[in-house]
């Protein structure tokens, strides 16, 4: 079953076409990796899913991204609920300048949840899901800015999970982290896909191979190949895919 279906998607920054006729499915409860050299459009595609581009002027979408039968690229799409159901974790950790607890509670309070017992439960559950609870349970009232980079990134994941998203979009979320923290987040992705759908942009070939179920290779705004990850890494149909996963370019 597909959570999202991308059909003939074009995306323009001003007059610059940065996505060219991209079509692929995002399967539920799996990890889809978007790979490709810098500037290939993988992050641009990811940011189409939660309409992040709408924050900046001069962008245009063509084609469709279907979710539950509706095109989320429609002007009428409610971006607030769309972004609640498709959470995003960025390249650099983005803890808010408030306590660990308030960071997680931020999204809940946005949804006007006022019941403090409910918020407490949800904060603990999300931190456990993000494998951070044991490390921060005694410092929930402390500033989140005091956590290490890896902890901050897991805090951001917990914050995203707290609002029960359907999917979490990872935008090179381990590229600023040390190997141990990266490992933790990769383990987390595999664990999380039981509950949510994951789309991960990554520069790291090993990461894509280790973590993902499906891989899409992009190049200059086009989708080169999309398939099950083992197919992409072992017997890809395109020569370019083979060369890229072997590290011959990019």
């Amino acid at each position: 079953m597909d959570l999202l279906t991308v059909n003939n998607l074009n995306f323009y920054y001003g007059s610059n076409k940065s996505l060219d006729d991209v079509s692929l499915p995002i399967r539920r409860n799996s990890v889809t990796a978007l790979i490709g050299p810098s500037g290939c459009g993988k992050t641009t595609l990811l940011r189409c899913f939660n309409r992040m581009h709408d924050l900046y002027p001069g962008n245009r979408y063509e084609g469709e991204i279907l979710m539950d039968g509706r095109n989320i690229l429609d002007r009428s799409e409610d971006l607030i609920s769309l972004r609640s159901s498709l959470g995003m974790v960025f390249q650099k950790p983005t803890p808010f300048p408030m306590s660990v607890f308030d960071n997680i509670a931020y999204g809940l309070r946005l949804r006007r949840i006022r019941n403090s017992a409910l918020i407490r439960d949800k904060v603990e559950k999300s931190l456990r899901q993000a494998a951070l609870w044991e490390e921060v349970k005694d410092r929930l009232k402390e500033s989140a800015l005091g956590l290490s980079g890896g902890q901050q990134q897991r805090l951001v994941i917990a914050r995203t999970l707290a609002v029960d998203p359907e999917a979490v979009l990872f935008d090179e979320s381990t590229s600023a982290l040390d190997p141990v923290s990266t490992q933790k987040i990769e383990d987390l992705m595999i664990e999380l896909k039981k509950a949510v759908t994951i789309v991960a942009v990554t520069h790291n070939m090993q990461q894509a191979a280790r973590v993902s179920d499906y891989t899409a290779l992009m190049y200059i705004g086009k989708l080169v190949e999309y398939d099950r990850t083992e197919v992409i890494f072992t017997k890809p149909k395109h020569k370019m895919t083979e060369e890229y996963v072997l590290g011959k370019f990019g």
Partner: protein
Amino acid sequence: MSGIAKRKLSNSVAMGISVLCAAIGLGLLFLILYDVVRHGLSSFGWTLFAKDPAPPGMAGGGLRSAILGQILLTAAALLAGVPTGVLAGTFLSEYGRSLKLSKIISAVSDMAVSIPSIVTGAFVYAILVKPFGGFNGWAGAAALAIIVLPVIVRTTESMTSMVPWSLREAAFALGAPYHRVIVGVVWRAAAGGIFTGVLLAAARAAGETAPLLFTSFNSGHFSLNMSRPVPSLTVTIYQYAASPYESWVALAWGAALAVTAAVLLLNVTGRVMIGLKQRR
């Protein structure tokens, strides 16, 4: 002379001139502080804060009315200027960040910071004193508000635009509408800087004389009535220092010390906060 010796010499000369100029500047500043403290201390005591000015020629008396009036005027100015300035600065860095108008407003605010304050005073005189038939505290507060407004607009704008966009995106990605992003994340991240700006603006307002001469003027009586003239330390200094009465001149020195100490305190607090913020 070899090249290196020449360069060393010109370096020493440049360094010497710089140090000399710095010493002159600092020396004058400390001379002023020394003089204010030396003269001010003699009339500095509890009576300065607890009593109103004595009639001319009589010894004693204090500056209770001027101190309270100064606080009243400054507080009223901040009450009007801070919310307006913070919201305007936020507009410039957020909703209006890609508008040409915002850049114009920014530039105009920069110019407004350096408008001679006596011009502001004359302007407020024309619209809030003349038509209402007399000097009044509201006009004084309005003049000070006009002076602090551009400072707060620009501080807020630069502090909020220093908040990284990724932080806003993270809040948007959680489904936050823009106003919640601003209140919950942007302002919170910029709060220290904005507060520092407000302190520095308050220091600026508290040290102004010219705009008050035209507006709130002065009064020897203790009053919280803003529709009447309201006394202030700075105008008191101006009037008392030029008076022929020794006791008034002494009070003027006391007022000078009080206002200098207050402005210095606000400034130092502001700077220390900036320092702490940058170290983090």
